[in-house]
């Protein structure tokens, strides 16, 4: 079975630590967009085992999000975005499913699925998360322009970290 392995939990906790201790301090100020947050943490959710029960996934996302929310002082915002991302993950995976399906037990893996797949998967995931996050942060469709602008800026900066992790540090796929 595709159970949660220790390394998934460790990775999640590590990402949370990186997020609150390092990335939270990176705030790029640009005109009209007062705060752009860099997010790496959603990647930990995206890298959860494929076969993980969706119910478990939702709860993991919820609690991980809540922990982050306490550090970001925004109760519920990150949790809601994470839960949404986790819920959407199944649809993203289905949509990107390669011919022949995923190999059972595999987790999102660079070596098997290919560079293009990894980029699409992480981009869509991060996109969903960031749009949700900035929408909930603004909380009104009135700010749609600023929401989109912030999401795009934040997406570009976050993806640098995400892809760096995926292509330089992440080894999961190659020896899977």
């Amino acid at each position: 079975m595709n159970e949660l392995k220790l390394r998934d939990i460790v990775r999640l906790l590590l990402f949370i630590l990186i997020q609150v201790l390092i990335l939270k301090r990176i705030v790029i100020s640009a005109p009209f967009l007062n705060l752009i947050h860099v997010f790496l943490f959603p990647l930990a959710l995206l890298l959860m085992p494929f076969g993980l029960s969706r119910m478990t996934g939702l709860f993991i996302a919820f609690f991980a999000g809540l922990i982050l929310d306490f550090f970001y002082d925004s109760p519920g915002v990150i949790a809601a975005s994470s839960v949404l991302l986790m819920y959407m993950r199944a649809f993203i995976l289905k949509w990107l499913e390669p011919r022949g399906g995923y190999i059972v037990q595999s987790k999102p893996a660079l070596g098997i699925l290919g560079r293009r797949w990894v980029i699409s998967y992480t981009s869509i995931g991060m996109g969903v998360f960031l749009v949700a996050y900035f929408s909930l942060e603004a909380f009104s469709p009135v700010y749609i322009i600023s929401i989109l602008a912030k999401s795009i800026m934040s997406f570009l900066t976050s993806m640098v970290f995400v892809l760096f992790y995926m292509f330089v540090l992440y080894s999961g796929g190659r020896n899977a």
Partner: protein
Amino acid sequence: MQNLLIFISRYGVFLTFLFLQTICLTLIVKYNNSQRAIFINSSNLATGWMVNKTDQIYGFFNIRTVADSLSYDNARLRTALEKSYVKPLTTSEEITSATEDSEYNYMPARVINNSVQLWDNKITLNKGQRDGVERGMGVINERGIVGIIVNTSDRFSQAYSVLNTQVRVSVSHEKSGQFGTLVYQRVDPRYMTLVDLPKYAEVSIGDTIVTNRFSSVFPDGVVVGTIADYAVEDGTNFYNIKVRLSHDMGRLDYVYIIDYINKKEQLELEGENDE
């Protein structure tokens, strides 16, 4: 029971998702100030709309209650303003007591939000449906016109400032009695533009512009401002007059909301004629 289990197993993930999102949204609204403000505000808009609609239905029955609720201040103002009465054939003693002949009620209110720098400026007042404010009522202060109520919630009401491109006020040139329309042309919040005043009216700089009662929003003769500049628009028979407002719209504080009691009747009558 079995059906319930099947249902849960089929939609369990989605239900969990909804459940967790509900918790998150509750947290967001409860513990984040800006989001809470937006939430309360939006729900106020929604409830305000509903209350507004119901109020229109109950409005007919409520007229007397609303009139009663208008404060002591209104009564005093009504007494003070001769224009508020149907005049003829009564002595002054009779006027003071003849409140049933009153046409306009004045309700004191304070401006709690105001802008002058936008194209479409709005004002928020601290009186709402609870106090009998309704859409379409005029707002003035002791020195001139201020705006027209467009939106009401329970405790607050929002008015289009006269400095709003949506607002057109019917006004008269006091000396000649000719009338035209006052509009805001966005340039300078101290000035508004009077259009459609026929060019055979003799105007000069410094003449007073007052409201007339065609709009059924403002009473007759409220001072609007004075003529600062005028010209006949090319190819038309009308003046284009620059009107200096009688007061600084940026410094509003106390204002009066005007309730024209016979408005409904007047509009209904005019509507009948149109058919």
